[in-house]
């Protein structure tokens, strides 16, 4: 007997037990879905699932939640906040027709912004599964998402970067030295963001004060962030510490977020606390989120939904809180989830496309671990494709080597590469500051003066 989800190809009939099984089997191959036991059994079954999925009406995703409404607050958020008016122009389309609609000449940034609230993460994930890599690049490049705090991120012709000056023992002088290096390379308009090695209160206080002093002293039009748990940041705000952005790692299911120690009401509370400080000058986007395929699975909170769909659901959580920045940390999780360069590249393009379609200021931590079957050349490929796709920002690390996290991420030099290649400038306020400081002009670095930011090292002394 044929199930509701089935497809006959020649003499063979492929049956799929449910919409979530169909989604999982239609996903391009990745090790995490195999590990979860939900991937297609062979090449033909995968394509058959994609063919079957192409005929599913978009509206079906509103009627058949992949994860039960009663049991998951992310599902409730997605369905309760769905904008029916925005959905109307695409409401009669199937998944396959939606792909064609996205790629029409007439579908532009304005139209995509208008329908954004009508697209659910599951619709975005579904269409991405039948899109090729070039489709993901082209469709994402049409989207434009603009956010602001002390500078404006995401404008046309712009490309931003996070200065990530991590140090294995949170040594302030060590962090200061990496900040000087990054600023001299014109990096940091998205955020100067430190991953602390511990959640130790005194360390976080020192880092917040130090970053605030650097930004104030040199009047840098950017924002700082110490990437600690949201509950720690709330305490910091209550203690009167200079918090610009609230950071949190997010996942796409309630169980997985619980594993991170967060839920929707905590995020709401944190955002309101940060807004109450009124520290933004040109905008009030105060949240910074990181995500990544595989987090729901590793927390045993995936409900047999594929990794990429779970990831897209995290974007529904993110967009609820109007973030300044969101990025996927695409190669961090390891080869049991994304095995090699091919899988990491595909996942990076999917994440960027889905997030942009859903209206997020999406960046990417193009990164990898040493036990994944990949190397710097694969990273170059993903970085170049994301640059073409209109990526909002990347990480900037000295010489690709994150000495605290023990993985490899894009470098200060990679930022220059994208600027030169696509003639993209930093955020306008930051660009003006770089020019005034004599560091940058016309997509090029120009300064090599040793003492431009000498006092930053002195602050490193004071904080000790």
């Amino acid at each position, binding site marked *: 007997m044929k199930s509701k989800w089935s497809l006959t190809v020649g003499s063979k009939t492929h049956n799929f037990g449910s919409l979530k099984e169909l989604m999982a089997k239609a996903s391009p191959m990745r090790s995490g879905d195999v590990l979860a036991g939900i991937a297609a059994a062979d090449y033909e079954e995968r394509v058959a699932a994609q063919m079957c999925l192409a005929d599913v009406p978009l509206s079906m995703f509103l009627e058949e939640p992949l994860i039960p409404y009663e049991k998951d607050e992310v599902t409730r958020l997605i369905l309760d906040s769905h904008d029916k008016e925005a959905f109307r122009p695409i409401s009669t389309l199937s998944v396959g027709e939606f792909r064609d609609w996205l790629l029409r000449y007439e579908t532009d940034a304005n139209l995509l912004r208008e329908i954004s609230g009508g697209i659910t993460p599951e619709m975005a994930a579904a269409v991405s599964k039948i899109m090729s890599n070039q489709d993901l690049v082209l469709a994402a490049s049409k989207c434009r998402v603009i956010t602001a705090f002390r500078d404006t991120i995401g404008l046309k012709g712009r490309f931003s970067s996070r200065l990530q000056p*991590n140090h294995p023992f949170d040594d302030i002088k060590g962090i200061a030295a990496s900040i000087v290096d990054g600023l001299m390379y014109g990096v940091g308009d998205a955020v100067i963001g430190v991953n602390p090695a511990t959640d130790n209160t005194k360390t976080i206080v020192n880092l917040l004060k130090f970053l605030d002093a650097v930004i104030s002293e040199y009047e840098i039009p950017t924002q700082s962030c110490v990437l600690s748990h949201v509950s720690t940041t709330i305490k910091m705000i209550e203690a009167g510490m200079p918090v610009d952005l609230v950071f949190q790692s997010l996942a796409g299911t309630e169980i997985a977020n619980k594993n991170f120690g967060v839920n929707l009401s905590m995020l709401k509370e944190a955002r309101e606390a940060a807004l109450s400080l009124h520290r933004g000058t040109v905008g009030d986007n105060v949240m910074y989120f990181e995500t990544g395929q595989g987090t729901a699975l590793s927390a045993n909170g995936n409900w047999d939904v594929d990794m990429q769909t779970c990831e897209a659901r995290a974007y529904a959580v993110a967009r609820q809180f109007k973030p300044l920045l969101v990025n996927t940390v695409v190669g961090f999780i390891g080869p049991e989830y994304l095995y090699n360069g091919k899988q990491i590249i595909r996942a990076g393009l999917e994440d960027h496309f889905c997030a942009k379609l859903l209206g997020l200021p999406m960046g990417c931590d193009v990164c990898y671990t040493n036990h994944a079957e990949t190397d710097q050349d694969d990273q170059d490929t993903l970085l170049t494709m994301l640059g073409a796709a209109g990526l909002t920002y990347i990480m900037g690390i000295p010489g690709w080597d994150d000495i605290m996290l023990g993985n490899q991420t894009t470098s200060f030099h990679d930022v220059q590469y994208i600027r030169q290649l696509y003639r993209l400038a930093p955020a306008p306020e930051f660009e003006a500051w770089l020019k005034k400081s004599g560091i940058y002009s016309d997509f090029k670095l120009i300064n090599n003066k040793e003492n431009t930011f000498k006092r930053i090292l002195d602050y490193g002394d004071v904080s000790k």
Partner: protein
Amino acid sequence: METFLSNSSENENIRANSMPNAVSAPDSWIGLQRYTSARIAIGRTGGSQRTPSILDFRLAHARARDAVHATFNPEELAKKFAEAGFESVILHTPIRDKQTYLMNPDMGRVLDEDSKKKLREFAKNWKGRDFAVIVSDGLSATAANLNAVDTVKALAEFLPEREWAMTPIIIVPFARVKIQDAIGEEIGIRHAIVLIGERPGLGSPDSLSAYFTYKPVWNTVESDRNCVSNIRPLGMPPRLAAKKLAMLLKESLSLGISGTALKDNIDDSQLLDESKDKKLM
């Protein structure tokens, strides 16, 4: 190349990734390198990385990759243990190749049927033993090959035989940390420790980790374990790591617990009080 550099007095203190050449040079703020091991002030050619920094990075990544894919020879390691005066046995998970290992964490957490049978046989002669010592290549065969024997030797020295009668060293290729629970479940041991190769970092391809558990059983969870990591000559040297582990293990025995409830209050500098340890730092 390195020999040449060290002979050149002019460039003596310059890192390999920052060496000047005829076309490009490190950045003028190169003095800041003394504050961090991050790859700062490495210079640029146009906006791109210079040849010395690209090649230096590639070498570090190559070493890390080689560590992941280095062949682990359990018989060879057993021989080294024998030379150091330790009996050992070799058991197996269901995994026989690296790719399967990398993609299937669950398979690395159990013994295959044959090994379970063998272990039960061995255990008949292990009555009265307190402490199972397990060694695996994990994510760095280099780490297990270079640092496991030294760590075990020192551990045996710091733990009194009376309370810490050891099983023979149980060598298990392609295992995960949880293998100690599978072994504990079979033989009902008081303490188990796994010495396992860590995911290699760029500067540390030979890093070993030690995880121990009080009364490990199949439903033991990660928060029931204690860990000492970065065990390698240039990180936490094996002898110091063993000393720290011994202190934690004795505390674990006296309190009858392990994991997050067992607090690590050891000041690592205290570990250096013996003069013979000082030269190891």
